């Protein structure tokens, strides 16, 4: 049976259209955890993370070669097919080769009234935070010009409180994976829907999900840790569950990376607070050195009770691909078995992966 959160992902386009009709506000699409959605909220607009569908990318294939990351390609395919016809704007951040290229593709093939390229530094340093702070002020100005209204600090602070509250509920649900057997797929659905629904609506769903978690059936598979690049559907986690595993903790953009850190509500300069959180506190391999990323991952792994690590990297995702040999070596040195997948965005690959996951679980259980 599908949870309300899982269904909400499927209904996300209807939800966005309904919000737009109800409020008369603008909807702004975005990629990646590095775009502060608080600023879009504060502009009274709805931020919507772009997600693909696991179907043939018949429209996008004309524009892209084969060996590229399938995630942005699948998103662009959905845009070309009209699924995102409610978008008024798009924010494309400088977060990887493929995503940053999407700026040009949107510019030339799917024009919108507002298209913004957000510069995101690729290193963590005081100068980078300073640059990102200035960049976020520029982004705020662009949103003000697009919306025709100034965005006050108080509105940004209010949006920060709202997003922090949602992240807190996500962390609570996430922790229940270890302590109460809440399925990893539910946590991922909760995360994905946080990226696409109006926050107030998501908070309601989260409260309901937390209440239900007291009585719902619990996962009892082999505890596993999942490290992944973008997984924009919870079907891979569900596959692990069906194969006898239970994802108790993760390090991935559509997971812990999205909700782990809060924005400092006490900082009198909310833009600087956003810059710090979004640049310094997201464990992203594009910005941090592999050693720091590994240390972060080991912290997440520690205490989770995971007995194996599944690494899922999308095809041609250079940021994650280079880390893999190092992570594998370090994890195995700590006695952890590692299973690697090079992922596509197709439904058929899941069946091929099932046997590997089952064998991996069997091997660990001995």
């Amino acid at each position, binding site marked *: 049976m599908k949870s309300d959160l899982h269904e909400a992902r499927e209904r996300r386009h209807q939800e966005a259209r309904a919000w737009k009709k109800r409020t008369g506000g603008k909807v702004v699409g975005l990629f990646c955890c590095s775009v502060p959605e608080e600023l879009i909220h504060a502009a009274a607009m709805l931020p919507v993370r772009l997600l693909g569908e696991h179907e043939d990318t018949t429209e996008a294939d004309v524009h892209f070669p084969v*060996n590229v990351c399938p995630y942005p390609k699948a998103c662009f395919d959905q845009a070309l097919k009209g699924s995102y016809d409610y978008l008024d704007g798009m924010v494309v951040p400088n977060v990887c*080769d493929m995503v940053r290229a999407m700026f040009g593709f949107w510019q030339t093939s799917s024009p919108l009234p507002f298209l913004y390229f957000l510069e995101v530094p690729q290193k963590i*340093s005081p100068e*980078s935070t300073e640059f990102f702070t200035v960049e976020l002020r520029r982004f705020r100005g662009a949103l003000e010009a697009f919306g025709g209204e100034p965005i006050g600090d108080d509105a940004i602070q209010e949006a920060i409180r709202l997003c922090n509250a949602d992240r807190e509920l996500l962390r609570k649900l996430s922790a229940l994976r270890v302590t109460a057997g809440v399925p990893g797929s539910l946590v991922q659905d909760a995360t994905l829907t946080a990226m696409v629904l109006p926050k107030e609506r998501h908070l309601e769903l989260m409260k309901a999900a937390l209440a239900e978690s007291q009585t719902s059936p619990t996962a009892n598979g082999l505890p596993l840790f999942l490290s992944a690049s973008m997984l924009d559907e919870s079907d891979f986690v569900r596959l692990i569950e069906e194969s006898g595993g239970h994802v108790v903790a993760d390090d991935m953009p559509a997971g812990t990376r999205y909700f782990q850190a809060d924005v400092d509500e006490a900082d009198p300069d909310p833009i600087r607070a956003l810059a710090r959180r979004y640049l310094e506190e997201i464990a992203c391999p*594009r910005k941090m050195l592999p050693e720091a990323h590994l240390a972060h991952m080991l912290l997440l792994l520690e205490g989770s009770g995971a007995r194996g690590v599944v690494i899922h990297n999308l095809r041609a995702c250079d940021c994650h691909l280079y880390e*893999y040999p190092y992570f594998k*070596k370090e994890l195995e040195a700590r006695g952890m078995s590692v299973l690697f997948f090079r992922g596509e965005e197709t439904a058929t690959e899941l069946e091929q992966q099932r046997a590997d996951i089952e064998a991996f679980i069997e091997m660990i259980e001995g």
Partner: protein
Amino acid sequence: MATSTSAKKHLATTLLVPELRRKHYAQTVADSKAGKKVAWCSNNIPSEILEAMDITSVYLENYATVCASKRLSSAFCRAGERAGFSQDVCGYARILMGYLLGGDDLPEAPYGGPAKPDILIVNSYSCDSRMGWFTTMARTLDLPLYVLDSPYQPGGGCTDPDNIVYTESQLRGLIAFLEEYTETSFDPTRLRQRLELAAKANDIQVEIYQMRKHVPSPMGAGDAYTAVWPGMYLTGSEECDRFYEQLRAEMRERIENGIGIVPEEKLRLMWSGLPFWYNMSLMNYFEEKGGVVAIENAFFRQLRSLPQQDEDPVRDMALRSTMRRGYAGGIGERIDLTVEVAREYSIDGVILSYNPSCRLFYILQPALKNALDRAGIPTLALECDMADERTYSEGQVKTRLDAFMERLLARRQGDRREIRPS
């Protein structure tokens, strides 16, 4: 040593490059032995700064192309894959990872291997692969790494003060890093001298690219892919300036005397993306049928004359590099520029080199194909890696090139029939 399949050069000046390159690599090894500090660099690291601080630079993308051109890429790439790197990873990176981690059964590396490094420097601008590659090497070799970060500026942004300020902070950070790890000191006067030399060489290259519009073509891609080398790796040296002065003079002479690459130039082609470094003789393949690869789109994007912007040489560099990035633009601008150049250089057809492990160029190629189709310029897509020779099939590639040239020649004849009075 494996057999080389280098391009036949038509210009006497270009024939000087292999010796310049051999001397350069020998010098870097000698420098290292003499105790000079050596930096392994990615492209887009300003060698002028390193030269001004007496630090020897070795550019690893170039070293990887040397390995490929000497037909060693298969062995090194395989070794890189044995070390755990996916075939999706950049061919250049796999070659170097194979060289570093590959074990004892590897062939002898060109020039005895790159000079032993003391530090590593990578630029974030070009692609994600370079970052992953250099961070991996820094850990493997246990050496300090500096990341020179840059904004991407797809919509221009040449004059945005924030981009300039950040770029300047990154350059000053690089200088501080070099001072710390190499115990050398920075002299702005020496940097200014290097920048002036580099600007001079750049301006001549801009002229040379303009001269290539001439029909018949005074220089084809077989020469051009070699002729870019001093400008990329000897920047800011008198040797580099002398090279381009000589090349310009030779090209002028060829133009004045109507000397082309082939006796009768029937087709003018563009090569889009990186060439297949292990088989550069492909650039001469068109010549038998009167075809010349008159221009490439890999290196000219950022070539333009930029006068000095500031007295302070570091700020000057920050301003100029911000402007160059702005001019290079994003996908949309790059597409427009390629179509424009195809027209300006009277191009009959474009060969799109789909290098699957070089995301930077690869992502763009279908969009370029679509734009060129719309502009009525025929294209041929060849999917082979720029460095990993195992992806190349001689028979298939040549059959497709033959068919493409036949198509273009027929089109040309058709054009002539159309304009000839009946």
